[in-house]
């Protein structure tokens, strides 16, 4: 019996396209995956074809243009399964920092003459605009996690990221001195892992790009951090990946 390859679309709204490049950086492994599926839409690496219906679609980036909203809603209608790819689509990403400030002032700083003509929305999560079926978090996503997702999807199993903090993987993969114990503002204990604690391993405190760990004791963590840094400094960290007040 001929096995029908699933039709896959990879679409980006406004983004740095880093999550797509993370997929391409898989190199040979990506090409091997590509043989098992039918990539019907992936503007970054092939010419646009006629729109069709997809079994699986990935959406990267934030809706920052009216066109982005149309693209997002259109994609939702054309796909059975929609996966959010990366922090921008999941939380609004770095663009959402304008939500914490005065967005007109921010726009005026960059475009002093033409800011009034800009479409400058409050940056929204993709999940606030359309229903989504799964999330691959991170800034950028983890390439190996993308492959793992496919392994499950092609086997018709639900892929679930284990609910473990970054600290778990920090200890598992690296024998590093804990940055938190060194007095650095690392969010590790309350952030979802799956990233092999790549940032703390490199000496960079975790800033939470993979999102809050479910059922984590956030108030305790934030209180503990306020002993080391001021509330304003803590807020500035929580704003980077749109964790503050979310």
């Amino acid at each position, binding site marked *: 019996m001929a096995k029908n390859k699933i039709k896959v679309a990879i679409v980006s709204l406004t983004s740095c396209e880093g999550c797509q490049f993370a997929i391409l950086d898989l190199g040979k492994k990506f090409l091997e995956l590509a043989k098992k599926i039918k990539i019907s839409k992936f*503007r970054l690496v092939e010419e646009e074809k006629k729109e069709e219906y997809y079994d699986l679609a990935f959406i990267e980036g934030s809706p920052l243009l009216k066109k982005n909203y149309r693209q997002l809603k259109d994609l939702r209608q054309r796909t059975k399964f929609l996966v959010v790819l990366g922090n921008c689509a999941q939380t609004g990403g770095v663009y959402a920092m304008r939500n914490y400030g005065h967005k007109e002032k921010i726009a005026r700083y960059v475009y002093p003459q033409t800011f009034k003509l800009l479409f400058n929305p409050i940056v929204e999560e993709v999940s606030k605009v359309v229903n989504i079926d799964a999330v691959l978090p991170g800034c950028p996503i983890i390439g190996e996690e993308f492959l793992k997702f496919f392994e499950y999807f092609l086997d018709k199993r639900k892929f679930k990221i284990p609910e473990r903090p970054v600290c778990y993987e920090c200890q598992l993969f690296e024998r590093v001195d804990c940055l938190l114990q060194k007095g650095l503002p690392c969010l590790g204990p309350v952030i979802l892992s799956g990233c092999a604690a790549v940032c703390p391993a490199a000496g960079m405190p975790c800033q939470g790009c993979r999102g809050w760990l479910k059922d984590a004791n956030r108030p305790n963590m934030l209180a503990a951090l306020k002993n080391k840094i001021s509330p304003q400094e803590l807020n500035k960290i929580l704003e980077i990946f749109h964790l503050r007040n979310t």
Partner: protein
Amino acid sequence: MKIRIDNLAKMEGHASFEGAILNENVGRAKMITEEGAKLIEGILIGRPYWQAPIITSRICGICPIVHFLCAIKALENAFKVKPKAGAIILRKILEATQIIHSHTLHLLFFSLPDFLKPADDFRKSILELRDWSLKTARAIGGRVIHPLTPEVGGFKKWPTETLMKMIVNNGTDVLRKAIKLGELFKRLKYPNWQRATEFIALRQAGEYAFYDGNLPKDFFKKIKEIEEPGELVKRVRYNKKSYMVGAIARVNLNWRYLNPCAKKLLLSFHKPPLLNPFYNIFCQAVEVVHFVEEITKLAKRKFKPINVSFEVKAGKGIGLIEAPRGTLYHYYELSPDGTILNCNIITPTAQFLNNLEDDLAIYLPKTLKLNSEQRQNKIKALIRAYDPCISCATH
């Protein structure tokens, strides 16, 4: 005759092309960017200085390393910090890996399909070369997309001697692959035409400048960032004219300082100046060879993992660096406690979009005799030859 190409593919970022052929000699061309307003410079105001590299690397997924390093250079300039030799060597290697991995992606996935379909084993060889550059970038930077280890004064974490030895050991094999890549790109059938323009890149006596270097005297007085209604890119003009940056500009200006294999490859093709915009593609292939040689040279040097301590204070700083697509500029003004008061970022694509349109306007009439599909393919090939990064342009 009007031409419109929507949703240009095989290019970083979203854009469409709109043009017209008015007669045998005159055309009109416009690149219409289709990214939303990211407002990164506005978002940085009021944030702590150390967030600049982290946030600006998110401007672009194909050149995050260069934004990260440029921000750090600008901050070190503001704080008057001089990092030690070891940090410079590592950053240069990191910057070189950025150029290699960006160029190889563009060459293999974006531009080459405009000319031919590569054999499987060729593609495999280039991916292996690219993999080496990614592994090296990871070993030094902690992560490729949105690096982690460089910081003001040095590095948060230094690579081990074993890792550095591994980079050197793989050098010969990788160089062979890079030269093979260059030889293929030498033989491509590039459309035969040219247009003279101003080429701008960093220059440094005795060096193929990429991490450090100088722009022409009074460059910042002579450029203007132009805001147009409905346009998110603040395009740059130099002396009111368009100009070119990137591989072809660097090769034209600094080719004498290319490493030996790269120079040999270049001169076996065409002695500079290269005025055919399509040759930007070949110049990228030359640079891949050059930077493989450069990394091998740099990785052999002995250095001590020393960070320079510094005082956070008020100041103004500029960072200049050659990104894969051309000269990148970051500027920060800091308050006494290190908060960003003002900033400005000028990206390569914002600098060369006008030049691309000027090229397209002259090139379009040459496609009059082609059918619609052939004409569109030629237009796309020229746009891709520039390797535009629309995300950088619209930051």
